[in-house]
């Protein structure tokens, strides 16, 4: 066991390569109970790879990864399901763990897709499927949630609601979350720790610290830096393109 009982997963100088090409290298981070760690970075910067290292999907890695829990919920970025399987939402929910019917209903209600319970998984839209994926991951009440772009394809209002849900789940279950997101706006308001990747860790720290970092600015531009620092206040309105407050 680690000295700190709250640590769920810990990466130390972790890296992974395929055919001598490093996908990501030298990543050190840890996810603790009740904390949200967010990975940001441009396309191909190794965010998903880092998540898969943390999950133990990639085995031949450099460095070390220590996982202190087996109760893991995972929402992968891409999932290809073979439709030769007759699979309903309900069957999918109990894929890795047997759950009570009420538990399934509760999770599906939380993500707003309870009405799809008996539908064939192949008949869902992208956004609906994403909500089912999230429901499945949270339904088993995991210690560690790894969410790789969990709201992709979800409509705008749904996106905000789901991020709020993720934050709420983190608090209620006291679970640790490793989150990957492109949406700097929504994510930063809830994140405890940000790791900015670009093939390696280019900077990490609290959202405000990262926003001030020069490497971060170089990677995402000056504007992104302002987004992060603006999250000192609670965002309860929507901006128009010109930055004015939008009236509903």
């Amino acid at each position: 066991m680690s000295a700190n009982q709250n640590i769920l997963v810990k990466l130390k100088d972790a890296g992974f390569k395929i055919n001598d090409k490093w996908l990501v290298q030298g990543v050190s981070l840890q996810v603790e109970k009740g904390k949200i760690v967010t990975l940001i970075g441009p396309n191909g910067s190794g965010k998903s790879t880092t998540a898969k290292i943390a999950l133990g999907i990639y085995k031949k890695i450099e460095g070390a990864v220590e996982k202190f829990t087996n109760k893991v919920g995972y929402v992968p970025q891409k999932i290809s399901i073979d439709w030769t399987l007759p699979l309903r939402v309900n069957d999918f929910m109990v894929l890795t763990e047997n759950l009570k019917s009420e538990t399934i209903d509760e999770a599906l209600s939380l993500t707003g897709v309870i009405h799809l319970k008996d539908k064939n998984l192949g008949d869902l839209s992208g956004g609906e499927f994403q909500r089912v994926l999230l429901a499945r991951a949270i339904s088993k009440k995991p210690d560690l949630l790894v969410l790789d772009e969990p709201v992709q394809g979800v409509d705008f209002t749904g996106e905000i609601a789901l991020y709020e849900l993720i934050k709420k789940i983190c608090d209620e279950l006291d679970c640790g979350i490793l989150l990957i997101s492109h949406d700097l706006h929504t994510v930063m308001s809830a994140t405890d720790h940000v790791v900015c990747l670009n093939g390696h860790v280019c900077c990490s720290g609290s959202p405000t610290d990262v926003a001030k970092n020069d490497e971060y600015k170089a990677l995402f531009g000056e504007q992104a830096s302002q987004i992060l620092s603006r999250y000192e206040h609670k965002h309860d309105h929507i901006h128009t393109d010109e930055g004015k407050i939008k009236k509903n």
Partner: protein
Amino acid sequence: MFDDFFIRALVAGIGVALVTGPLGCFVIWRRLSYFGDTLAHSALLGVTLAFTMEFNIALSVFIISSLIALTLIQLQKRTNLPGDALLGLLAHSSLAVGLVVIGFLTFIRFDIMGLLFGDILAVTVDDLLIIWIGGAIILLILKLIWKPLFASTVNYELAEAEGLNPDRAKAIFTILMAAIIAISIKMVGLLLITGMLIIPAAMARNISTSPQKMVVYSIIGGLLSVILGLFSSLEFNTSSGPSIITAAFLLFIISLFKIKQTIKLKN
């Protein structure tokens, strides 16, 4: 009651169908039809070795098929050849070696047709024991690894990430495939075993909405095929394997009408 060859064949066939039903679903879901074929082809080698060394046929087939499966896994790791090429390579090589060995065994009278297509006259009480005990063990193990195997069939990374150890489940499943081929070879014959695995399961896919239903329908389909096939085999004096598989194929065709209905309902 097992004095009558036909009763023996029927009991044997029912035992085989109970096991090929669920296993066949996984063969379809995991796209292993040609893998099954390869193991079945290698069974000939197993049979010939059993004759040369006066060894139990089912056990010998099981050992050879398992070895071929392990060889395949190793070759996949160590070569850049595509999977289907490796399957073809192993299937035909082992079939050829098996036939060459038969050529040397001139001192034994060989019923090669029975071997290839199944022979209901040849089912003994010992075979019944092997089928039912072996079958029960296969089903028990399949039940134990169901969760990780099914989860990794749906999505490997989810199963791995959530701690289900899919690699172990896959390895065990491979051994189960070798075992079902070993116990069903006398009934269906080595050329048609894969048919017994996939055709009832394919029929079941057409009419089922959940994985559990597919397994149940696949078993029922297998049982019906065995019963229909064996009675017609007796009636028309045909080999048992082809008769059973033809019956399964007829059931598959009937199931196609059910799909048409479902598609109509949807629109």
